[in-house]
């Protein structure tokens, strides 16, 4: 296992995409959170400090109205860890250097998860820094509300990164996996949710199924109190942070398990 970890670690840091993905993620997070904090500072006496910091560090995703932008970029690390292997024919070189496929897969999953967690927390810290520059939010930084959002966003990003890795291992095509990372949560789930709502218009309860759409459910992990109020106003009762987190974790586990099983049995 240590051989596979050494290999994967060096693989990660010996390609340019690692550096530009980190740069893009942190750069856009810094620019976005600075703009958000600056914009909020123009509004007088209207904010709950903890709620505001939560919205800034997630660039509004904690409202439940927009996706967690940084998670989509970070998930590309997951896609690339298998995508590059198949796109450039490296998989055979990898498996002649480390023939233990279980170790290769585990090392990729571990490093993807670790990197996603560190990057997500890094993004949250950037958001806190931006809010401090323009807003009096120092007190909010010690509130549970903010740190639950930080933790939830990190967990969501880790699981999302593992989904990206599993998509790439399943389809063995980098472009296809990138498309799935974007299309499944942003398009497919919304279409399914819309269909369920239409079906339920005449009093059915099919709309309840929308609660277990995995990426939507997972987003509850970093939803703020504003999102709860908004959902109540709209008459929607999602699973909540724990329930949604469990649904998304189960979905990710199934996806990763399927990818693992196929990786062990397929020809390289």
């Amino acid at each position, binding site marked *: 296992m240590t*051989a*596979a970890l*050494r*290999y994967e*670690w*060096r*693989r990660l840091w*010996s*390609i*340019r995409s690692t550096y530009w993905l980190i740069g893009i993620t942190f750069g856009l997070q810094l620019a976005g959170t600075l703009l958000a904090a600056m914009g909020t500072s123009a509004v007088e006496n209207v904010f709950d400090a903890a709620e505001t910091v939560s919205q800034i560090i997630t660039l509004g995703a904690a409202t439940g109205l927009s996706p967690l932008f940084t998670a989509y970029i970070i998930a590309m690390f997951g896609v690339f860890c298998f995508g*590059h292997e198949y796109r*450039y*024919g*490296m998989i*055979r*070189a990898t*498996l*002649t*250097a*480390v*023939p*233990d496929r279980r170790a290769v897969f585990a090392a990729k999953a571990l490093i993807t998860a670790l990197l996603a967690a560190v990057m997500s927390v890094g993004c949250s810290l950037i958001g806190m820094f931006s809010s401090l520059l323009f807003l009096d939010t120092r007190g909010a930084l010690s509130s549970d509300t903010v740190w639950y959002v930080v933790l939830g966003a990190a967990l969501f990003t880790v699981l999302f990164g593992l989904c990206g890795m599993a998509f790439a291992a399943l389809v063995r095509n980098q472009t296809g996996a990138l498309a799935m990372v974007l299309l499944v949560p942003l398009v497919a789930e919304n279409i399914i949710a819309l269909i369920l709502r239409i079906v339920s218009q005449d009093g059915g309860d099919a709309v309840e199924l929308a609660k277990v759409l995995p990426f939507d459910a997972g987003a509850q992990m970093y939803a703020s109190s504003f999102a709860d109020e908004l959902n109540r106003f709209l008459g929607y009762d999602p699973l909540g942070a724990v329930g949604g987190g469990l649904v998304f974790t189960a979905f990710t586990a199934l996806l990763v398990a399927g990818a693992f099983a196929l990786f062990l*049995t*397929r*020809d*390289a």
Partner: protein
Amino acid sequence: MAVIEATGLGKSYGGKAAVIDLAFRVEPGSVTGFLGPNGSGKSTTMRLMLGLDNGDGRTTFDGVPFRSMKDPMRHVGALLEAKAFHPTRKARNHLRLLAAANGIPDTRVDEVLAMVGLHSVTSAKPKGFSLGMGQRLGIAAALLGDPHALILDEPANGLDPQGITWLRNLLKQLAGEGRSVFVSSHLLSEMALLADQIVIIGRGRLIASGAMSDFITSNARTAVIVRSPDMALLGPALAARGADAQHSDEGAYDVTGIEQSVVGDLAHEVGARLHELSTRRATLEEAFLDATGMSEEFIGGVQQRAPTGQGSPGDYGQQGEHR
């Protein structure tokens, strides 16, 4: 030093057998050429040997399967395809990556890059490499762990004549150091110069294996050439020894099934004059073509076109019959 032993190798794709119950042995201190027509299963066999493809059978290196090895690149070096690297990962970093997994020091990376002649492009991105440079990088990767055994799939592809000569000398030197070298190639003339032993397959089955010299000598095209005005005396004597004499176009006889020296002794015994007594050895190509005659997977065909220039483009190109 590693003895490579493959037994019962088998692989099917969609119900079609690509490799069937293949067994052979590669001895240390030799270069073993792996020959077969296109689509005969050579690359599949090599992937099976390294556990990259799932199939039947077992391959061991001094009794140990590749997948069970710790630091496998220290025992077995492999080149399976050209240009199997990330286009923007520098050549040196590509090798450092492989070295990291096998406990190989980075100093060895520079050694093998110098060995394959890529010392001037260690910091270059391989996306600009020619096929030959890509092959050299792949060979460097195979040599990285200073392994006892080498498995190389078409390593001469893309190399220029100087590169091919370099590769031949390198592989002979490595075999001379007691390593087992198993190498496939389509270049039969090159293989004739390189290999001591051969394994020939056709349609996934073993056709021949053993010493290269025995394979060529046993081919029907190897014959003793006899030119004599006294064939009336010599012919029956040859027949009595079980030899077969066929009249050739140039007034000589091609005699098979008997050594040249024995023919000379017989001629002396029966008082036959000899104007020519020599041995024509089959080339590896002739022997290979005879051995694999009905084992080609893909057969090309070209129709004759009228020299009047009135034929249509469709007159060519009946290639690719699939049997």
